[in-house]
């Protein structure tokens, strides 16, 4: 799980200017290495979500290039909101990507059940989204992103709206899934603590326009658990990252 493996996707001098003139990203450089867990950290409006949407192909870069050295792989995307179809049962929601790819219905159902099991939601397969709690909806959303066995999992502040207890639980479960499946994860967050807990590498961004300020490598070993969360080592990383974020925000403010 080294952070220096071959690159799965690279952003080269990527810029994004919205129609209203807002420059969300400018000269953004990022190499995502195969198998790594990398976080994009920055204050609101620093363009981190925009960068993620550009990687996903949901938004086009105004300048620069997105390169896939080993060819474009399958992508899973988890939005800030659970983004489930309220009229479909949880299993059907999770199976949606396979259905859209016209996969065999029985196989899709089995894959959906497996993905639900992985996030601990198997017994709610027949429920409707409105019957689930916020944390469970997010689990279903993650199961849907995992169901296609994506090479790259993109997560856009997925736990920002959850309470702390649920967030910690989902952090642990996400790490367990990541270690088991060895997928590449790009995780967008504005929480210093969450980024340090989860990632091998944190890309700290400056706001307006968004660009990379610095990188912090979190070389604490996995599995990480509640012991890590309360360790001096964790606190040390958090202090370093928080300082970097403070400087990044100040730097962005001056420009």
């Amino acid at each position: 799980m080294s952070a220096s493996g071959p690159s799965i996707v690279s952003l080269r001098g990527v810029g994004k200017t919205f129609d209203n003139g807002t420059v969300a990203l400018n000269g953004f450089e990022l190499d995502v290495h195969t198998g790594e867990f990398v976080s994009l950290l920055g204050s609101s409006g620093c363009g981190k979500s925009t960068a993620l949407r550009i990687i996903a192909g949901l938004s086009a870069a105004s300048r620069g290039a997105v390169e896939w050295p080993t060819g474009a792989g399958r992508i899973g995307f988890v939005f800030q909101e659970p983004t489930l179809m309220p009229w479909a049962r949880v299993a059907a929601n999770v199976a949606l990507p396979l259905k859209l790819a016209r996969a065999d219905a029985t196989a899709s159902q089995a894959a959906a059940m497996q993905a639900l099991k992985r996030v601990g939601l198997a017994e709610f397969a027949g429920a409707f989204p409105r019957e689930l709690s916020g944390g469970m909806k997010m689990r279903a959303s993650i199961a849907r992103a995992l169901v296609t066995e994506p090479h790259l999992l993109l997560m856009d502040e997925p736990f920002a709206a959850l309470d702390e207890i649920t967030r910690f639980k989902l952090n642990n479960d996400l790490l367990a899934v990541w270690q088991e499946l060895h997928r590449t994860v790009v995780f967008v967050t504005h929480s210093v603590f969450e980024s340090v807990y989860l990632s091998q590498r944190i890309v700290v961004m400056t706001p307006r326009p968004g660009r990379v300020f610095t990188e912090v490598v979190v070389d604490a070993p996995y599995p990480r658990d509640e012991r890590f969360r309360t360790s001096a080592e964790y606190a040390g990383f958090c202090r370093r990252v928080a300082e970097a974020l403070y400087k990044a925000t100040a730097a962005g403010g001056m420009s």
Partner: protein
Amino acid sequence: MSDRLLPILLPVLVLAIGVLIWALVVWGFAIPPFVLPGPRLVLATLVADAGLLWNSLLVTLLITFEGFLLAALGGIGLAILFNQSRLVEYSLYPYAVILQVTPIVAIAPLLLIYLPQPLAVLACAWIVAFFPVLANTTLGLNSVDHNLLALFELYKATQWQVLWNLKLPSALPQMLAGLRIAGGLSLIGAVVAEIAAGSAGAGSGLAYRIAESGYRLNIPRMFAALLLLSLAGVAIFFVLSTLSDFALRRWHESAARREL
């Protein structure tokens, strides 16, 4: 008294009081039946003329149903077309609005000149009923969750998949709301056309009976026919509401039971 009984008991109580006042006024002021018949006379007329009124009711209901069906098909179909093509929407939407805002009472006599009478009545029912279906379905199709749309895009869904698996289910609540309005309106359209046609001669629907009874000063039968029309309207609304609640009960906040 429980919360489940009140919504039934209170309107029934209001009805009873209203009918009582009506009967008392007719009796107290000795109003002749050709001015204002009492409730008992209206009911008696309803029973005595049951065969005639029932046949007329069926005629009106059939037209209403046909008008509603065409309005549902036309409204939903046009909304899908508008949603798929901006050019079609820009070209046709203003005319849909014009058709809607021009009073149907003014259009009906013209339609009766150019179309055979049953077709003219049907056209009136359709014109009044299709717009709420169109407007509501369009709103629903355009209110799709943007993130879900992005998700479908991410998984390279075809335009057809987006329509069938995302836009139509997501528009269902608004579509059903439009249909619920259209049911009542299609009855109104049919009645308006029948009344307009009534002065032109032919026709045997319930509204025609009202017009005819008016000419003959058969006021009790006017009331009896009006009562039937109201009941038909209520029944249509009730059926459509029930269908709508049934379709949405599992997932939409409007129909799902709240647990307190």
